[in-house]
């Protein structure tokens, strides 16, 4: 069944590349929504339903950690799996994201196989 998903990253390049990588990983895609920061992402979620979210951490206006916190505090959205995709590699950040409810954590740069491995159990 095709997945409707949300990609949250301030880089349009990464949003485009991630969609391409998901195609290469043969993930069945439905509608892909894009947001440049956590504020835009929450606005999209108020209108649309998605089955999976990819989110960067370092973004303007609302970063990925703040977005994840607000997402998991909302009954309507808290079950949606979130995979963090970011350059942040410290154990502290990985742990923080996990404690806030992230379903996966992937460091940039990434390959199609790495994306596929991360989301296999989530879809």
């Amino acid at each position: 069944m095709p997945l409707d998903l949300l990609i949250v990253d301030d880089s349009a390049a990464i949003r485009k590349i991630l969609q391409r990588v998901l195609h290469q990983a043969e993930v069945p895609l439905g509608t892909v929504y894009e947001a440049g920061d956590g504020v835009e992402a929450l606005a999209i979620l108020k209108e649309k339903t998605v089955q999976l979210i990819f989110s960067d951490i370092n973004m303007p206006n609302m970063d990925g950690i703040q977005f994840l916190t607000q997402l998991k505090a909302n009954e309507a959205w808290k079950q949606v799996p979130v995979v963090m995709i970011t350059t942040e590699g410290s154990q502290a950040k990985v742990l923080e994201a996990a404690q806030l409810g992230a379903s996966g954590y992937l460091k940039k740069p990434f390959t199609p196989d790495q994306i596929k491995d991360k989301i296999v159990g989530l879809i």
Partner: protein
Amino acid sequence: MADQLEHGQLSQMIRRATEEVFTTMLGVALKADEAHFEQSPPANFDGVVSFIGLAGAWAGTGSLCCSSKLACSLSSSFLMTELTVVDEQVLDAIGELTNMIIGNVKNEVEEYLGPMGLSIPTVIYGRNFGARSLGHDAWTVVPFWSGADRLDVKICLAPKERAAHEHGTRAREFILP
């Protein structure tokens, strides 16, 4: 945790991060050249320069710079679409490459110098311009070659107290008669 980092160690971190990003995300193999120090960047530059800030117990800046032609070529490989002029797509791509390369260097540097934050990248494009960061520390520069075109990946870091003192001194030089 150590509290210092040698030029050789930093240049190796830059080299590893750049090669990993370019191999994984662009499928491009760059040829690294010998690392060196740079006290002042060139005054008259044509091309694309990006900056990203680093802040923690040590603070500084990471930067990429290259010609417009190479910026378009690298962005084309990154996005798998043909880009022949520096536009929003190219600037965004170079910004993200800066974020990934310097971000991965930061992850290694943190093991020596403690936790650091990373800013949002800024990308500048133009002709005959100069750019510099305040402070007197030298940049560690690692040049890479893609054919005859050169990409410089560079980082400048200093202990925050020393960086703040130098900034304060320079601010006073401007303000006081």
